[in-house]
């Protein structure tokens, strides 16, 4: 059996997942990164994207909209502002997220960042095939 890290996914409202995983692919703000056992301790902020967890029972994906991840040698905790398992995600929900982000982009003073959030969401939609 491959060595594992303890994976935790928490949203502000509840703990969504907590199980051992062999690798976790994280959509970091500066680019994707994969955390495995023995990864250097890192804290990274997230961009909207797909979080992929390779566990003992196969691969699970989650849609996250932002937050941050805390990686240590033995565990990965993802604190996501919003997180939904990919198989529960509907195109309509994704539409709502994009609409929210675009609305925020229209209001936000930091136009670049907000626009990036929208394009990240759209990229994720393409990747997820919804």
């Amino acid at each position, binding site marked *: 059996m491959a060595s594992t890290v303890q994976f*935790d996914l*928490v*949203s*502000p*409202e*509840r*703990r969504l997942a907590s199980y051992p995983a062999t690798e976790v692919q994280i959509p*970091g*703000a*500066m680019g994707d*990164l994969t955390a495995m056992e023995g990864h*250097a*301790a*890192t*804290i*990274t*902020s997230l961009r909207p994207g797909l979080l992929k967890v390779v566990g003992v029972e196969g691969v699970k994906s989650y849609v996250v909209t932002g*937050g*941050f991840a*805390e990686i*240590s040698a033995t565990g990965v*905790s993802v*604190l996501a*502002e*919003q997180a939904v398992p990919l198989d529960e995600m509907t195109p309509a929900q994704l539409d709502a997220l994009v609409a929210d982000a675009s609305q925020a982009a229209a209001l936000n003073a930091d136009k670049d960042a907000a626009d990036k959030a929208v394009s990240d969401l759209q990229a994720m939609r393409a990747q997820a095939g919804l």
Partner: protein
Amino acid sequence: MPSLKDLKNRIGSVKNTRKITKAMQMVAAAKLRRAQEAAEAARPFAERMTAVMSALASGVGTGEGAPKLLAGNGKDQVHLLVVMTSERGLCGGFNSSIVKLARLRANELAAAGKTVKILTVGKKGREQLKRDWASAFVGHVDLSEVKRVGYANAQGIAREVMAAFDAGDADVVTIFYNRFQSVISQIPTEQQVIPAKFEATGATALYDYEPSEEAILADLLPRGVATQIFTALLENGASEQGARMSAMDNATRNAGDMINKLTIQYNRSRQAAITKELIEIISGAEAL
């Protein structure tokens, strides 16, 4: 002396009241369980958020160039008090205790020459504060349509608060809520959210930061405000149900006592009436 009919009516009405308070108590108990679960479920996020933020904050410090949400804008003239209360009454001293604390603080600040502004969440507190502090009201968040408080509600409040801070309409933001301790005890609490305050943590693990420490902190601070408000809302929700439950429990018990008393009174009067009738019959018979 009320007539027998009056007493009977009275007993009936108290019995109805008891039914209502009993039902409210049970509803509150069910809601309390849910609220407690929600508060429980939100805890891991809030705890880790605070841990990471305090590690970051102690690293970055509050010197030059620190994010404003952490270091403040250098003034403490205008204080914004966010007073969180319930949308519904009949929950004992729940709302009054928050309002009392908020009023105390507001008076202190006003006496010290500061400007006080008040943002109310929940209409019960607004009603109570209206008398003394109506001129300080800057806004109101209505959660009466919200069935279940979500993170989005907290974000909405946080956005409003931070907009005020950014615009210079507030220098220090403090939230007031009831911390849930047990069904019979809720502790009115005030918590300063802007500038953020962290307890100094000792040794922290060394982390790589991506992007930089400052960027992550700047990204996290607004979320931290929302998380603190969310936690407060949840605690408040649990406290409200707890307070309502014990208030309704008392009311149910009082109604029971009252029914007992009234029933005794009713029986005595009935007995007296019967005795009186008997005496009349007997003395009538003797007179013959």
